[in-house]
C-alpha cells in the first residue's frame, strides 16, 4: 500500500521502484546438527562426551550403592530435554542406553577386578527362578537401570521448564 503522506510529493515515486523487491540470493548452507531438537546447537562429540560422563556417573553411583542414580540421571535428562526441546524419540533411547551402559560398566569393572561376575549372574538367574543363564541376569539388571531412567525422563519432561522460545 502507498504511503498517503507521500502522495503528490516530489521524488516520492520513482520508476523502477514500484515493483516487488528483487529475489534474495540463495542463503548459505546451514551447518548440520544432529536432529535431536529443533534449533539445537552443539557438536555431536560434546553430546557423546556428556553421555559418557553420565554413564560413568551412574556406574560410580552403582558401585557405591546408590541404586537410584539411573532415575536421577533420567530425571535430569528429562528436565534438560524439555528445556532444550529435544525430541522424545531421541531422548528416550539415549537415557535408557546411558543408564544401561552405566550399570553395565559397573559390572564390567567388577569383572575386570577378577570377580566371577558371569558365574554370579548365573546364580542370580537361578535363584530368581529365571533361566539359569548369565545373560538373563545381566539383561534384567540392565533393564532395571533402563526402566528407572525412562521413568525419570518422563517425570523430568513433565516437570521441567519450557524453553523460553518455545
Amino acid at each position, binding site marked *: 500500500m502507498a504511503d498517503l503522506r507521500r502522495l503528490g510529493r516530489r521524488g516520492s515515486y520513482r520508476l523502477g521502484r514500484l515493483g516487488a523487491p528483487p529475489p534474495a540470493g540463495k542463503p548459505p548452507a546451514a551447518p548440520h546438527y544432529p536432529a535431536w531438537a529443533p534449533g539445537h546447537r552443539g557438536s555431536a562429540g560434546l553430546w557423546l562426551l556428556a553421555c559418557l560422563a553420565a554413564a560413568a556417573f551412574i556406574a560410580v553411583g552403582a*558401585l557405591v550403592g546408590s541404586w537410584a542414580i539411573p532415575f536421577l540421571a533420567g530425571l535430569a535428562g528429562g528436565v534438560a530435554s524439555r528445556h532444550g526441546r529435544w525430541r522424545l524419540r531421541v531422548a528416550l533411547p539415549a537415557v535408557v542406553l546411558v543408564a544401561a551402559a552405566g550399570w553395565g560398566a559397573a559390572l564390567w569393572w567388577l569383572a575386570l577386578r577378577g*570377580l566371577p561376575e558371569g558365574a*554370579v549372574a548365573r*546364580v*542370580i538367574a537361578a535363584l530368581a*527362578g529365571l533361566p539359569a543363564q548369565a545373560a538373563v541376569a545381566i539383561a*534384567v539388571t540392565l533393564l532395571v537401570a533402563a526402566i528407572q531412567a525412562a521413568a525419570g525422563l518422563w517425570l523430568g519432561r*513433565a516437570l521441567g521448564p519450557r524453553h523460553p522460545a518455545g
Partner: protein
Amino acid sequence: MGRVFNVLAALLVSAAVLALFALGYGPVPALGRALDPGHGAWTSAAGGQPAHSQALSLPGLAHPVTVAFTSHGVASIRAADDADAFLALGYLHARFRLTEMDLERRLGEGRVAQLAGPAGLSSDKFELRLGLLRTARAEWAATSRTSPAGQALIAYSRGVNDYLAQASSSGEWPSIYGLTGVYPGRWTPVDSLVLQGVLTQQLDYTTTPLDYAILERTLGPAHTMAWFPVLAPGQHNPYDPGPYKDRGIAPIAPQAGQPVLAATASAGAVKGPVAGPGPGSNRITPQVAAAAAAILAQTDALPAGTIHQYPDSNAWAANGPKVAGAKSMLAGDPHLPQTVPSIWYQIALSAPGLSVTGVSVPGLPGVLIGHNAHIAWSLTDTQNQATLFYTERTSKSRPGQYFWRGAWRRMRQVSYTIPVRGGSAAHLTVDITVHGPVMTQAGQTTSVDWMGNIPSPDLAVMLAVNRAHDFAQFRAALAGWRAPSQNFVYADDQGNIGAISAGYYPLVRHGDPWLPMPGTGADDVAGVIPYASVPQVYDPPGHVVATANQRPAGPSYPYYIGTSANFFDPGYRAGEIYASLQGRSRMHPADFAAVQLSLTDRLAQQIVPPLLAALRGGHLTARQQAAAALLHGWNGAMAQSSAAAALWWTFWGDYLDAVFGPWWKAAKVPVHKDRAGLAVSPQNQVSLDQVLAEWTTADPANSAFSPPGGPHRTAPAVMRSAFATAVAHLGATLHGAPSSWAWGRLHFRQFPSVTQAPALGYGPRASGADPWTVDAADGGLVSHQGPSWRMIVAWPGHGTATGEGVYPGGQSENPASPWYSDQMADWWDGRYLPMPPAGGYAAGPVLWSLRP
C-alpha cells in the same frame, strides 16, 4: 489440563517404579537394591574368588590363630586354646556356608516364610508346632556357661558373628540375601542347638505309627501285623548278637519345662521285642485315622529330607588278623540327603588337648565323624522307634484341657508370630500336653512324644568324644547321648574296635507303641533302656563289627526297639559288608574302599534264582527269553551299564505290586495321604520287601499271593506274571533289545541345591547302585540320598593314623567358587583324598593369619 495429567501420570509411575525397586512387592524383591551391581546380589562374587593367603582381624580371639587350606579348601585350624579354635571354626563355617546354616536355622525356628514367602509357611508351622526351638532354648538353659559345651557354643557364635559383621560392613553377602533383602540375624548358641535339632529330626522323627493306624484301619490288624511285623523274617545280621541282660527301665532325664514325667509310671512288664497286638487299648477309630491323615498331610508339605525316611549309613571296623599294616581300621559312610553344598564341612582342629580331624556340621562346633590322635569313630542311625503318638481325651465342655491320669489338665499354650515375606504375618498357637505338642485336632486331638524333644547334651558328648583316648572314655562320653540314637563305631591305635548304639529307646508298659496310643496315662513312656543294656560290642571275637542300620540286636533282645516298618534296614547292606569282611584277612584301606563302593544287591542274589526257576516253568516270548538270559550268571551288581540290574529292579517293583497291589486296592488304602509310607514300592515299605523275599524262598504258597476274591496263586505264578510285566515296562520305556536296557538309563543320582534352585544343583546323572547296595542310592529312580562322606582310617601304630575321605560337593557353598563342587568327581569315581592329620598341619597353598 493435558500437562497436569501428564505431570500426575509421570509422578505416579515414577513413584511406583521407585517403590517397587526400593521395597519390592509380594514375591518380587526390591529389584533396585537387589540388582545394584555394587551392593546387591552381585556382591556375592567376592565369595566366589579363589581364597588367598591373608591376615584377618577377628574380635573375640584371645591369641593368634592360623588356618591352612588344602587345594580343596579343607582347613586346618591351629589355636592356642579351645575357645579360639571354635571361634575360628564358627568364622570359617559362616564364611563358606552361611546360607546353608541360615536356611537350616530358619527351618528349625520356623522362619522360612520370612525368606521364601507364603510357600514356607506350612514348614514353619510344623516346626514351631513340633518344637525344635523350644527344645533348643531348654537345652541352652540347662547348659552351664562355663562348661566345655557352653564355652564352645559361645566362642563359636562369636566367630559366626564376626563374619556377619564383616559381611554387613562390606555388603558382600551371599546372593540369596542380596536378592531377597532379608539378611541373617546374629548367631546365638540357641541357633546351633536348633541345628542340632534339625539333624535329629532328619534322623529320628518318623510318622510310621500314623501309617500303621491307616493300614490297620484299611487292611485290618491281622494283615497289618503279618505284613509289617515287629520282627521281620530273614537274617538281620545284628552286630550285637548277645547274650543280653534285662536291666529294667532307666528314667528319662528331667526336662526343663516338663513338670510331669512318665518315668514315674507304675511298675510292670515292658513290652518285649516281638509283642503282638496289644490288649485293645490302641483302637484305631475313624477319628484316630483322620488325625493320622491330618498329621501326614502336614509332613507331606515339608521339604524333602526334613523328617526321617530312609535307612542311613554304613560303618564298620576290623582288627587283628583282618587288617594288614595296621592294628585296626575303620570305615564310615553316612547316607544322608545329598545336597550341594554338602551337609558336611571338612576340618581339622588343633589346640592344647584337642587334636581332631574329620567332618563337622556347619552351625555346630566340633567334629562329628573323624578321628583324633588315638581313636576313630563313625556313625550310623540306630533306626529305633523314637516317635510315639498319643490320642488325647478331650471334651467340648472343657476347651483347652485333656484328661490324664484321672484328672482334667490344662494344656500349656505357646503362641508364635511368623513373618511372611510379601504377605502379612501368620499367627500360631501350639497346645502342649504332658506327652508333647498337639500336632492336630482334626478328628482326634493327637500329640507326639518324640525323643528329639528331650534336651540332649549332644554337643557336650561330641566334644568329649573328640578328646577321648580309649574305649572307656569313648563309652563314658556316649552315656549322655539321647537323640538321635546312633550306632557309634570305634577303632583305636591300640588295635581295639567296638560299637555302641547310644541314645534313648522309649519303653511303654501297655499298648502298642507302633500305633497311636491313648493319652490317658497308662500307655505313657515309662522310661528308656538303661545305657548298660543298649546294643554294644567291644573287640568281638570275629574281629569285625559292622552297622548298616540293621536291627542292632537279635530276636532275643529283651526290649522293644521298633518294628520292621521303616525303622530298620532289611540287612542286605549289613549282610554284604559282613560277607565281604568275614571272608577275608589282612585287609588294607583299599579293600575297605572296595566294600564301600560295592554295588552288590543281596536281595537280588536271593531272589533271582527262584525267579529263573519259576520262568523255566512257563512259556516265554522271544523278548522275555532274551531278558531272562540277562539274569543267568548275573552277580547281583547294580552297575550303571548292567541291563540285568534294570530288569531286576523293575521286576521287583512289579512283583511287589502284583502281590500286594490287589490287597491295597481292595482295602482302599489311601496311598495319596503318604506315598512314602503307604505306597507299595521297593524301599518304601522295607517290611514288604522282607516278607515277600521270605515267602518267595520259604513259603511260596502263602495266602497273600492269592488276591482277595481272586484265583489261587503261588509265588512262581506271580513271579512269571510280574516278569512279563517288567519286560513289557522296560520295552515300552527303553525300547530296543533287552541287552540295551542299562540300569543307568533308568537310574540317576541328583544333588539338589540347598536353595532349592534347580540350576544350582548337580545332576541328575546316570548312576549305578540301589537302596540295598553298600554304595547306596535312596529315594527312587532319581536318588537324592546316599553316601554323604566316605572315610577310612587306619591305625598303624600308637598315635599314628592315616585317614582319607571324600564327600560329594566342595567346601564352599558359593556356586562361583572353585571349591563349590571340586570334590564331586573324586567322590563319583570312588577316589579318596588324604585327611589333614589330627594335631598336625596340612601343607596347603593358602594360609590365613587370624588376629585378635
